[in-house]
């Protein structure tokens, strides 16, 4: 069974803190993605990675960075958390080229920055 796990379901951080969100998949997928979901704004792509040590900016990369040192693990880093980064963060993975590009999602991390 496909499995994507995220390190925390709920997280509360203070403004200015450095925040690490971890994602692990056990499906040997090449591709991994980080999204944020906000009411009325759908799923917005932050960063993605098609291979180890490779990363590409998505639609809203400002204020974020990522790390992919191993194939199964993709980390999202908020260098200095701000209140406008309060959101639901979703990690996903997929096979290279898969039939329709289907992505498998983790349960999400609800981050609150105070």
């Amino acid at each position, binding site marked *: 069974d496909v499995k994507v796990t995220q390190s925390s379901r709920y997280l509360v951080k203070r403004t200015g803190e450095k925040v690490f969100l971890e994602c692990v998949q056990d499906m040997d997928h090449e591709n991994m993605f980080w999204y944020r979901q906000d009411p009325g704004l*759908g799923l917005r792509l932050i960063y993605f990675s*098609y291979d180890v040590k490779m990363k590409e900016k998505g639609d809203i990369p400002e204020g974020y960075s990522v790390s992919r040192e191993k194939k199964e693990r993709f980390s999202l880093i908020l260098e200095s958390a701000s209140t406008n980064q309060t959101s639901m963060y979703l990690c996903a993975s997929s096979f290279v080229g898969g*039939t*329709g*590009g289907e992505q498998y999602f983790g349960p999400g991390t609800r981050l609150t920055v105070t």
Partner: protein
Amino acid sequence: DQQVKQNSPSLSVQEGRISILNCDYTNSMFDYFLWYKKYPAEGPTFLISISSIKDKNEDGRFTVFLNKSAKHLSLHIVPSQPGDSAVYFCAASVWAGNNRKLIWGLGTSLAVNP
């Protein structure tokens, strides 16, 4: 500019009736379309997809119809059940280099009333 549009932010139907969720797109290069379902505080889960060479795909209570000339697709749920209450996202798949990218709609919140 949104390439995938879900023009109804919300929809309410009675249990046992049909739910119809709509999605419009602008890019004729999209060759697969996917529907995802998302409950609050959970990650999206894949529901059903359709290739651009087909006009219908069915899986149990869920059927997706594609009208390429109108650049329109719809998800039909028959009969609707209270457990179907969730946000439904339409996504379009397109090749970006050697890999696939999903372009997401903003979602439609479905409420199925007992």
